[in-house]
């Protein structure tokens, strides 16, 4: 569940000259991984977005005459212990998952880029202070840190969101800082300085775009990590509270019923697996698509 830096070497970020947009699309065509991941992620995202418009039954309305029904015509994924429609609950839960995953990661990304950028430019005093702080945060597994936060501030979706973001930013800060340190020494940065560019302009036109590349991979990985963390926190009862649906919570509620109603375990389990998988694959594919050495061979 810890999403900090556990990225296989083959997926690692790379840097160098970039291809034109056309080149990226040429590269993407015929790459089955990214098509699979893209279609999967898009389907999940669209579903989550359109849930309120879909002809689904009320995910919260119990029906005690219809408990633990097997998947069939009336209920495509069956019903749970309270007779609620499982399909509706799985789909509604995707909104929580994606919301927390994307926004917690987004917040962590912005915070990490701010801290990493400041550290990269901070010099002798600011850099070590910021980086030691980052290291302290980095030493907590996201899920453990989040549990501590939730224990203090209470459960619920909003707190889960902040708790995950609070411990997910350090990896972005570390990666971005090291890239900033490398990019700011490049000759094209010096060339801009010689042309009279302000440090501000240099940062936003040259350093940020060239240093941000690897963050795409980490972002995708972090979204997957955040989704898993949210599921984990809901599973142990610190996230979304009943009767509201969340994949982790639904798993927890139906673990004891696995032999009688395996669909109640499989549906949310598969949902969380496929969702995080799609982001991990997207991250890997994005890295490859953006790695210029993969494309034109260079000098």
């Amino acid at each position, binding site marked *: 569940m810890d999403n900090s830096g556990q990225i296989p070497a083959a997926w690692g970020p790379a840097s160098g000259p970039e*291809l*034109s947009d056309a080149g990226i699309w040429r590269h993407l065509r015929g790459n089955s991984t990214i098509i699979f991941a893209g279609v999967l992620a898009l389907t999940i995202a669209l579903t989550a977005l359109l849930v309120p418009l879909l002809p689904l039954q009320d995910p919260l309305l119990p029906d005690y005459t219809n408990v633990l029904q097997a998947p069939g015509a009336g209920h495509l994924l069956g019903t749970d212990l309270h007779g609620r429609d499982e399909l509706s609950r799985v789909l509604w839960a995707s909104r929580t998952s994606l919301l927390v995953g994307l926004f917690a990661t987004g917040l962590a990304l912005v915070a990490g880029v701010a801290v990493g950028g400041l550290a990269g430019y901070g010099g002798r005093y600011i850099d070590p202070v910021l980086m030691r702080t980052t290291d302290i945060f980095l030493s907590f597994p996201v899920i453990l840190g989040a549990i501590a936060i939730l224990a203090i501030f209470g459960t619920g979706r909003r707190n889960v969101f902040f708790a995950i973001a609070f411990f997910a930013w350090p990896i972005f800060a570390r990666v971005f800082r090291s890239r900033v340190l490398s990019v700011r020494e490049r000759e094209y940065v010096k060339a801009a300085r010689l*042309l*009279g*560019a302000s440090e501000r302009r240099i940062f936003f036109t040259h350093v940020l775009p060239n240093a941000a590349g690897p963050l795409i991979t980490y972002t995708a990985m972090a979204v997957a990590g955040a989704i898993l963390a949210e599921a984990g926190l809901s599973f142990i009862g610190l996230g979304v509270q009943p009767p509201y649906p969340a994949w982790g919570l639904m798993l927890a509620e139906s673990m004891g019923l696995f032999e009688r109603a395996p669909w109640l375990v499989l549906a949310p389990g598969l949902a969380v697996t496929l969702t995080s998988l799609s982001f991990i694959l997207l991250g890997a594919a994005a890295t490859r698509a953006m790695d210029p050495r993969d494309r034109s061979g260079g000098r």
Partner: protein
Amino acid sequence: MPLLEVENVSKIFPGRSGSRGAGGNVALHNVSLTLEKGGSLGIIGESGAGKTTLASLIVGLEQPSQGKVRLDGAVVGEQITLAEMAGRVQLVWQDAAGSLDPRMRIGAALAEPFRIQGMMERGRPEAISGMMEEVGLSPALARRYPHELSGGELQRAVIARALALEPALLICDEPASALDARLKRQIIGLLERLRGERGLSYVIIAHDVGMVRELTSELAILYRGEVVEAGPTDAVLSGPRHPYTQELIASVPRLPRRQAG
């Protein structure tokens, strides 16, 4: 008044521990050079002799530990800032690919000097096409990214960018050492033509004799951070006195004499 004066400049980089005492690396020791307006100065030295450090000091990217660099009489880094120097002196690096932002199209890179200086008129596509033609680049390349250009094209683009703000002095740090003989010839021809058209002054930094012999009238030999020999290029090359210079001239094969510019 000379265009460029390097006065007793020394540069000491902090030692590996980066802290007080304990020597540090002496990159340049007591270097003095002068360049008149419209003149051209060659600096030859082996790797590690301090050539690139000297170039960085002249353009103000680094500050000397001792001594002063003057441009038109004004002390670089004190009386004129880096931003003010943009229109007076520019640097062309050895690695042309590395001195262009890999995510910026050539056209945008060439327009950047004008954007930075707020000269929007001159950064327009027609003007950029003109700049590209002046250095022998097809304007169609403006839409390309640096990695889609050849080494010779990249160096032309970098030279065009360096000349955008019409500096009086161009520092070239091994401008053609990564290019083959034919392309090197072309870059030399381009630099000679630009000198004629614009009245540019050059400082050409190199590790061998070829380019410097053709482009410069004055020559300084840099050896382990010190100028060991200086004078008119022909005189230094025909009658070298320092052992390093003698070895250099004996060991470097000559470029074929020029055919066409």
